[in-house]
């Protein structure tokens, strides 16, 4: 368990966007692993199994508990995003003047602050190496929505990082 707990917790935390819930999900993952111990004990892909279970449980958790709340709690923030002029911020000087450990912490914090509909596809794309098509299928949304959400997530993430002093804005228009 010690060899995989960071991976399982990180997977759950990035998808769920909340450490407390991620710990609950990680606990559930290891309890499932315990129940299936005989099947996975000698498997060379136990890490992949745990990651898949962590991803699925995190997504199930979001689908089960947040669908209703998400509608209201993030609608406002989405509207705010759409009202703003679209810019492509480029936190290109990420390392400049910021300690690497602090930079990584800021990135994790910025990820958690993204609205769930943007964060989840972004995490699945960049951390779980899923394709746009796979994400659309897994989340039950259109391919176009996945692409739009991931694009918005990147823009929002870059803005958040820029605001934290990790880069400089570059306007979209030439």
């Amino acid at each position: 368990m010690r060899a995989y707990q960071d991976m399982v917790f990180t997977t759950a935390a990035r998808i769920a966007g909340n450490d407390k819930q991620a710990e609950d999900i990680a606990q559930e993952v290891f309890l499932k692993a315990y129940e299936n111990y005989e099947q996975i004990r000698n498997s060379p892909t136990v890490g992949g199994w745990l990651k898949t279970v962590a991803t699925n449980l995190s997504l199930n958790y979001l689908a089960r508990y947040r669908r209703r709340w998400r509608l209201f709690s993030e609608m406002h923030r989405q509207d705010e995003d759409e009202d703003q002029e679209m810019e492509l911020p480029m936190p290109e000087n990420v390392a400049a003047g910021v300690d690497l450990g602090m930079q990584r912490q800021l990135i994790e914090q910025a990820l958690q602050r993204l609205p769930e509909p943007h964060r989840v596809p972004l995490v699945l794309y960049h951390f779980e190496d899923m394709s746009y098509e796979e994400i659309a299928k897994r989340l039950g949304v259109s391919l176009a929505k996945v692409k739009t959400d991931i694009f918005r997530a990147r823009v929002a993430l870059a803005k958040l990082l820029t605001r934290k002093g990790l880069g400089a804005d570059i306007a979209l228009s030439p």
Partner: protein
Amino acid sequence: MNADDRERELEQLIGRLLGEQPLRQAPRSLELRVMAEIERRARLPWWRRSFAQWPQAARVAFLAASAGFVYVGLRIAMWVTEPIDSAARTVELPAAVTWIQTLITALITVSESMPMLWIYGGLAVLTVLYAVLFGVGTAAYRTIYAAPLRSA
């Protein structure tokens, strides 16, 4: 540089940034929680564990009993409602369950004689109450739960 180039550049940049992120450290409490939960589950008697972990005989008996309950329930439902569906057919009911039949008959009579306006009005009131409850719940969620997360 056009918009597509900038988008591609942003994708590469974010991909690089996220790709360099190390795993986060799991809380120390996680292992303790998992071990405690495993021990707690191991101490549970078999009938309080998940169905998949029940003894084979118990699972078979449970399924048989469930099927029996469903069958009995259906027979009782048919028995109680039969005189309502068909006035010509009467069934002798035990005195202990006669009130159920009376209650069902009364409910049907009331619903048939109620003006449609009352029904629509009642549904409207229920909808408003649900919306208010939903709004209060959402406000509580945003204030108590979501706001501290955003400010963290």
